[in-house]
């Protein structure tokens, strides 16, 4: 049953460019797909370790800037009359570096911020993202500041026997995003079902108990933060090479909030949750556009977030899964312990 649904969903997504000819809708689907990858990476932290990171867009933006700068080249002066000059590299190298450097940033933020928990962790992550945004805004020599980095090249793939394929059309970019999203999904699924994944969930459900059975808290959380940041960096790189222009607004807090809404509405701690929530909230602005002024759209956005937390606090996918009696599969839903805890916490 589950396999059938998965195959059907992937086949549907893969067939979209074959029958959807509207470039505006295809564009919305591609950017939504990129944000879904970001939401999946956020879900790894929020849904499986219970840490709410509200600075997640930092890793996405760092990935975007690293990838753009790697493929554009730069020439900046550092203190002490040193000049750092970098000649343009192929975009695919930028993609790899984006993953690496975002992951590295995730390591340091993870190391520092897991010393503080709860509300303080949230505030540290927000502060980190804002500091990165201010650096991107003010280090004009490197980032062009508010003037933005423009003419970022599209990703080119070297295919043996075919020469080099530059991904310029929307259809090509759609498949690129789909493939990266599938790889990220499988990676997260594999991770969650491993010994490491059980350690993460053990921590989320009962930290004291997890420590007593020998789970290394800091190590587990740091690894989760690194992988999560690296995937977000990959999404940022895709974004940079697809949109082909990057300015400091990419770090806007509202982008983090969008990812959080995608995860919470779809169902945190559910693998399919961010995908379902992401498709709904990524495409909602498109659906609202003809009927509402942009400001009113955001009012609706805030209202919908509140409504979801009141009506479906666990998210769409876990609620549906429970209704159809698949809660014991333990795959798309929270473990029973977590369920019991959540139920106990909810006011009658």
């Amino acid at each position: 049953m589950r396999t059938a649904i998965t195959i059907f969903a992937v086949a549907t997504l893969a067939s979209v460019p074959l029958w959807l000819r509207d470039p505006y809708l295809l564009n919305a689907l591609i950017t939504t797909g990129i944000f879904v990858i970001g939401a999946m990476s956020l879900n790894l932290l929020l849904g499986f370790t219970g840490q709410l990171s509200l600075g997640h867009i930092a890793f996405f933006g760092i990935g975007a800037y690293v990838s753009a700068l790697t493929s554009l080249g730069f020439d900046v002066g550092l203190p002490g009359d040193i000049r750092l000059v970098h000649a343009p590299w192929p975009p695919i190298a930028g993609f790899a570096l984006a993953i690496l450097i975002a992951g590295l940033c995730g390591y340091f933020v993870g190391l520092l911020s897991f010393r503080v928990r709860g509300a303080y962790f949230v505030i540290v992550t927000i502060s980190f993202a804002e500091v990165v945004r201010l650096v991107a805004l003010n280090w004009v020599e490197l980032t062009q500041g508010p003037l933005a980095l423009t003419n970022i090249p599209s990703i080119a793939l070297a295919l043996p026997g075919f020469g080099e394929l530059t991904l310029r059309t929307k259809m090509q970019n759609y498949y690129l995003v789909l493939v990266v999203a599938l790889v990220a999904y499988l990676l997260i699924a594999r991770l969650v079902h491993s010994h490491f994944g059980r350690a993460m969930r053990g921590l989320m459900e009962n930290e004291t108990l997890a420590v007593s059975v020998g789970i290394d808290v800091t190590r587990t959380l740091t690894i989760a933060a690194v992988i999560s940041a690296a995937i977000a960096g990959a999404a940022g790189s895709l974004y940079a090479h697809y949109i082909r222009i990057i300015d400091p607004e990419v770090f806007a807090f509202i982008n983090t909030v969008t990812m959080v809404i995608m995860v919470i509405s779809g169902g945190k701690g559910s693998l399919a949750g961010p995908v379902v929530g992401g498709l709904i909230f990524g495409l909602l602005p498109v659906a609202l556009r003809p009927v509402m002024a942009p400001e009113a759209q955001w009012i609706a956005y805030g209202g919908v977030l509140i409504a979801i937390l009141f009506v479906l606090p666990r998210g769409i996918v876990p609620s549906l899964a429970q209704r159809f009696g698949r809660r014991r599969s333990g795959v798309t839903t929270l473990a029973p312990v977590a369920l019991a805890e959540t139920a106990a916490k909810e006011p009658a």
Partner: protein
Amino acid sequence: MSEFLQHLINMLVLGGTYALLGIGLTLIFGIMNVVNFTHGVLYTFGAYIMFIVVQQLGLNFFLALPVAVLAGWLLGAAIELTLLRPLRGSDIDTTMLVMIGAWIAMQSGALWIWGGVAKSVTTPFPEAPLVLGPVSVSWLRLFVLAAAALLILVTYLLINKTSLGRAMRATFQDHDTASLMGVNVDMIYTSTFAIGSSLAAAAGALLGPVYVIFPQMGDLAAVKAFAIVILGGLGNITGAVIGGFILALAEELGAGYVSSGYRDAMGFLIIIAVLIFRPTGLFARAERVG
């Protein structure tokens, strides 16, 4: 040297309003354990009330401040009753996300109603600043400092000398015990949120005429308020006042001696540094909750 003195004067003026913002947030955070993301919107709201009363209704500038405080109180109470009271007992992440939703909706509402063009308020103060030897300060800023000091004093007396304040402090220490002692905890929560919100609105009403008024002005104010709360320690009013002045000093020195582009980065850097090196705040007391 005179440049440094000027920075100190600016720090005093800015610090007073920052302290107001910080006190409001630290009360809500400390007593209710709610990370209040609507704090910045209340700041914006207070500034727009100032604009409406002075510019659109043509009423007295000095009347506008109490109106803003009252309006902030009412809006705060309304938010608490509709959004937070039904979620009592749910975890901190849920209320935080609900507050984020309310913040987005209300800020977009402000943009919808008043548009994105910045507004300014005409004040009854003379244009020429007061010159004291090497430094100068505008009359408007002096008024802002005096009004902020007055509001801080009133809040301090309210918390420490009234029975409502005593109930609030009891709830902060242990809400279950306070409840058993006959404190109406629901009422305390609503009052706390309303008082905190009215202080944020007051800060906005005071700083709005100093700068310009626009819908997103509250975002940075909210972050600064978080920095102040973290500096001063949770629920610590004296800490929030000192934290407000420290943040103002850091911003003034950062803008003056590093780069004005990084003025607003100071708050974030303080947050990160304090949480790494002294996570209980600079003036932590043993009974800190949370």
